[in-house]
């Protein structure tokens, strides 16, 4: 226990936040790097995966691809991907930039499956009756996508981004252990110096960072949730609410009688994707 107290004291010591300290140290710099890497790679991944996932969810084409892709990416070892990219990119790019470029590519690759699965599962979980209703009042396919499907599936889309952000935060720790900056540098320096404060302080810092960001995303998911079966639990019947379109109304009588979770209100083939691939990630 005294290790933890000492590590917390180390974290709270203003001396460790002074600018211009030796490498792993001004803590705020490492936090900044960590968040920057995470932001850049998730943004790139979202640019690739969101349109693709929305397209697949809307048209239903390529469903098998999403499932196979997210499933097999789960088995890919993070460290192996990082190592491979380091060596391959090290052959062409100057040494100083290798770590950065290789890591960002690895993070993007690891962030894509969750975002893709979230966007796909979100759009596909929208009640087909609602979509047909939108079509019958004369909406174009793009309008349906942007005014009906995306607003209704926002919690799941955000859920996918949430999973990918957490995965990247965890992977940045591993990458910085190898030679990138970020909070992992504090841990790896701690291990090589055998300094308990650095090891535990760094680890606690990453953990708190992950939990805080996870909480923010949970809040965003909660705020964007509209009528219809919620992810965690849906109660009997819900009132009709205005959906994002304004023109369509979702009369969201939950279709199954007993609904302890929404899993049952989805057709069998969709359950697995919705349930397991969105929130799961490797570290």
């Amino acid at each position: 226990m005294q290790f933890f107290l000492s590590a917390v004291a180390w974290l709270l010591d203003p001396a460790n936040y002074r600018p211009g300290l030796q490498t792993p140290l001004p803590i705020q710099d490492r936090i900044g790097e960590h968040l920057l890497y995470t932001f850049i790679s998730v943004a790139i991944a979202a640019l690739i995966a969101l349109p693709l996932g929305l397209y697949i969810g809307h048209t239903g084409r390529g469903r098998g691809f999403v499932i196979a892709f997210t499933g097999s990416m789960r088995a890919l070892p993070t460290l192996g991907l990082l190592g491979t990219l380091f060596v391959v990119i090290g052959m062409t790019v100057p040494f100083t930039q290798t770590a950065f470029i290789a890591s960002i590519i690895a993070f993007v690759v690891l962030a894509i499956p969750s975002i893709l699965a979230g966007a796909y599962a979100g759009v596909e979980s929208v009640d087909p009756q609602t979509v047909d209703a939108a079509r019958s009042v004369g909406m174009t396919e793009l309008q349906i996508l942007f005014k009906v499907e995306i607003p209704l599936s926002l919690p799941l889309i955000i859920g996918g981004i949430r999973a990918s952000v957490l995965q990247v935060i965890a992977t940045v720790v591993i990458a910085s252990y190898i030679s990138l900056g970020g909070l992992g540098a504090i841990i790896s320096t701690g291990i090589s110096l055998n300094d308990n404060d650095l090891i535990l302080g760094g680890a606690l810092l990453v953990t708190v960072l992950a939990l805080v960001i996870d909480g923010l995303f949970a809040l965003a998911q909660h705020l964007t949730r509209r009528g219809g079966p919620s992810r965690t639990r849906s109660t009997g019947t819900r009132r009709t609410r205005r959906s994002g379109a304004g023109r369509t109304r979702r009369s969201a009588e939950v279709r199954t009688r007993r609904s302890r979770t929404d899993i049952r209100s989805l057709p069998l083939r969709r359950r697995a994707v919705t349930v397991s691939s969105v929130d799961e990630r490797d570290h």
Partner: protein
Amino acid sequence: MRGYSGVDAAMLREEGRIRWLSDEDWDAALNWIFANFGLIWSLTVTHVALAAVPVVLGFVVAVPLGWVATRWRAVRSVIVGGGSLLYTIPSLPLFVILPYLLGTRITDPVNIVVGLSVYAVAIMVRLAADAFAAVPADVVDSATAVGFSAWKRFWAVELPLAGPVLLAGIRVVSASTVALVSVGALVGSANIGFLFTDGRQRQFLEEILVGVVASLVIALVFDTVLVALGRILMPWSRRTPRRTRQMRSNATLATIERGA
């Protein structure tokens, strides 16, 4: 004179399969594999052991918890919420925090087993709760009505009906556990991850790729074993439809499609 491997490489390149490795690279890689087969094999054995324990533990611990979570709603949010909170902790920090909690040395493999078990339980408990929630309440009520005790009903009715979803869940757990074990190499565990750290230090691409392939093969073998177990224990679920899709997902590592 060329060795066997050289002939193979030339043949493969003619078919357009490999372009990015020269003959010498290919020879070097194969020679390296043969020369270090003992090492690779022992790393693989460690890797399998480190991954198998958490998968089994995760299943054994999470299934009762998932059942409890379905039975009492108040408990559900605690268990499932607690699980997702634990799962939020990044892996490397968890591996280095655990020694201080367990009183082990930082390089002790126990840390990795415990850490991965925590993750396995954390994911599996939610999937198990969903699996039991998906058992039709009518069936459970009927079983109660014809006189099943809670204990017997669990084994004879709820567990078999939740089985396919549980299987899908444990396949997810197994794939991510096998992949995560290699992170343990950063805290001194001698598993397949060692090939990644060592290969990166020596800028030896083939070594890393051998590691990646080995890790994927282990994941595939685990998955196959789980599916086979599912077939044996749940012969009725084979009759569920979509033969073609089954074959397709057999070919890939897709862990989520079938049985769910």
